[in-house]
């Protein structure tokens, strides 16, 4: 028997080698950037930095070209602006904050390869001679050159990185870059839980113009953000609570459940408030996971569309119709044909409920004929959930979609903004 115990021990050793990856985000510790004399950048400076850049040093990691775009997060009276760099390679992105130090512009942050856990610090400078003087004085610069270093993990960055301004970003007035589950899945190892308020705050920095969020309903009728049908260790910190999420009251979930990568399960109301008042996001896809009546969902959608309009904020909120069960509930709603909705079902069903958006899965292909038919009827077409830079490039170049839902919104952002 001892051999079998020995084998069991060895086998358990092997099986215990399962690696639990943590979201990698390097510590922001550039002393020059954090020094007291460094001040925030004026908006006109930020706007002029946006654009398509040629990567002169660092193209092995970031590709030959990159798109740079600002986004923001508001918390109370504070607004944090972030400059994101979107690369064509492996959904790599950089997220930076900017400050002015004397006559230079400092950009400090980190890079991340979305498909794995590679990351590192990034420190860039636009010197006075390389365009900062013009940018800080609201004058068009002859050229803008960002130069500095990047590194791996938490090491001091030492590898040269420089970028030269090439042209403005492609104008985006109507194409939707949608981030899956509020910004990304837990499996993407981002520094926030999927479908959390913190993830929603990150989404625009990943390049998103909007988010898809999953909506369940608790036992006491509260609409919440959660993907799976049950409480499980993929999404929450183990606490002994199991079974269908709809069996719990919101008070129970709020008091007892911690999301896997931090944060609480948010209500849909909290999520919409966050989107509306703390981010530049303009599109919300409510992926309907609840099984019963959609009346509460419709009421909240209507309320927030009105709030957005009253605040002069462009925000579209669509009720997703992913299954026939949800379709049955949706058609019970009064005047359902006038409700902003998004149908994942076939073309005739989409037409029958007068959905504003048709959302076929990318695995159905480009479907040019059907897409044209939908667009001729005034509907938009958004495909999901499209990942992989090659696939994204193909669908953007060969298809005629109005948006893409992705786990890699940064890759969609690069290919959209860089397209001439």
């Amino acid at each position, binding site marked *: *028997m001892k*051999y*079998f*115990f020995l*084998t*069991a021990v*060895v*086998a*358990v050793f*092997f*099986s*215990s*080698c*399962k*690696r*639990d*990856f943590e979201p990698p985000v390097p510590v922001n510790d550039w002393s020059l950037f954090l020094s007291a004399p460094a001040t925030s950048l004026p908006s006109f400076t930020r706007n002029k930095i946006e654009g398509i850049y040629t990567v002169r040093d660092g193209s092995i990691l970031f590709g030959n070209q990159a798109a740079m775009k600002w986004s923001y997060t508001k918390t109370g009276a504070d607004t944090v602006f972030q400059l994101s760099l979107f690369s064509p390679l*492996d959904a790599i992105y950089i997220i930076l904050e900017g400050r002015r130090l004397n006559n230079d512009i400092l950009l400090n942050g980190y890079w991340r*390869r979305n*498909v*794995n*856990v590679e990351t590192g610090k990034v420190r860039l400078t636009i010197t006075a001679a390389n365009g900062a003087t013009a940018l800080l004085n609201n004058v068009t610069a002859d050229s803008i050159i960002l130069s500095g270093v990047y590194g791996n993990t938490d090491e001091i960055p030492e590898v040269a990185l420089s970028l030269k301004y090439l042209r403005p970003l492609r104008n985006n007035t109507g194409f939707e870059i949608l981030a899956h589950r509020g910004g990304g899945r*837990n*499996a993407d190892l981002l520094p926030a839980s999927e479908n959390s308020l913190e993830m929603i705050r990150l989404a625009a920095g990943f390049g998103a113009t909007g988010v898809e969020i999953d909506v369940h309903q608790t036992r006491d009728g509260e609409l919440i953000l959660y*993907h*799976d*049908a*049950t409480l*499980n*260790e*993929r999404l929450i910190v*183990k606490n002994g609570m199991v079974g269908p999420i709809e069996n719990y009251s919101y008070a129970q979930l709020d008091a007892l459940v911690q999301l896997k990568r931090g944060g609480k399960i948010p209500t849909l109301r909290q999520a919409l408030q966050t989107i509306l008042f703390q981010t530049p996001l303009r599109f919300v896809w409510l992926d309907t996971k609840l099984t019963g009546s959609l009346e509460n969902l419709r009421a909240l959608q209507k309320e927030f569309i009105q709030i957005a309009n009253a605040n002069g904020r462009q925000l579209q909120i669509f009720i997703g119709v992913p299954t026939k069960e949800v379709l049955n509930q949706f058609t019970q709603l009064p005047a359902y044909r006038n409700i902003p909705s998004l149908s994942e079902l076939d073309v005739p069903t989409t037409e029958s409920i007068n959905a504003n958006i048709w959302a076929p*899965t*990318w*695995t*159905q*292909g*480009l479907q040019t004929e059907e897409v044209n038919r939908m667009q001729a009827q005034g509907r938009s077409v958004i495909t999901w959930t499209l*990942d*992989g830079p*090659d*696939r994204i490039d*193909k669908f953007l170049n060969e298809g005629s979609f109005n948006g893409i839902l992705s786990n*890699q919104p940064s890759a969609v952002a690069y290919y959209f903004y860089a397209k001439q």
Partner: protein
Amino acid sequence: MLSTYLARFAKKVAGMAIIFSSAITYAQDVPIENQKFILFPHPLNHKWIVSVGFTATTMPTAITEEAHFRVPAAELHVLKKLGKKLSLDGRLSAQVIQNAISIGPRWATKFSERLSMSLGNDVAFWFGRINLGGLKTRGTGWQNFPNISFGYRFNKQILLTLKAESIMTLNVKTFAGETEVQTDYTLFSGSAYTVALEQPFFHKKSLTLGFRAIYTSYFWQTWTLFESFDRNLFFPQVIIGVIL
């Protein structure tokens, strides 16, 4: 998370150990020359060795999400003696809708009556065709598994094998309908480590019980998920076989 996983796995191993322990009680002390083995790295003493059984691989939730499932596959494993130390190792792993076949040479030598080792290289081809909710998907791929095994023979004909493999993905072609899916993969896409026991069972048959820890960024049985992760995920695999 880890403690739950360990408890679950320990339960599984304990169950299998009970099966094995009953076999041990009746195991007779026979020389290695008369013993059958399929994984044990030792020069073959039979012209052919055939094993049938199954493997069960647990898929990681990182790609299966809420559907945390274990996929069994029927296994046919054949060794053909080619020379004193050389043999041909062939294997069929079948799930009907997706199957894999591998073949490759194995060179084995023994250091003593107890210790032995082998070197091998298996080239595998997998193919699958699945209708996913009305969408016809299909895929094929090539992989290569250079491997090394060390064996230790215990007193009562219990053969312990420790095997390490490198996983090389040579090609992947998958289609969703008529859309070719450009599945990303890396050449050196992981490694696998096996611990296995073999011993006489009944009626001149032998039993194989093994555990294979697979760390890979591309496990062929997950081709329908079209995932684009480039980091190694853990696929624990249980191996059970009867050597005929």
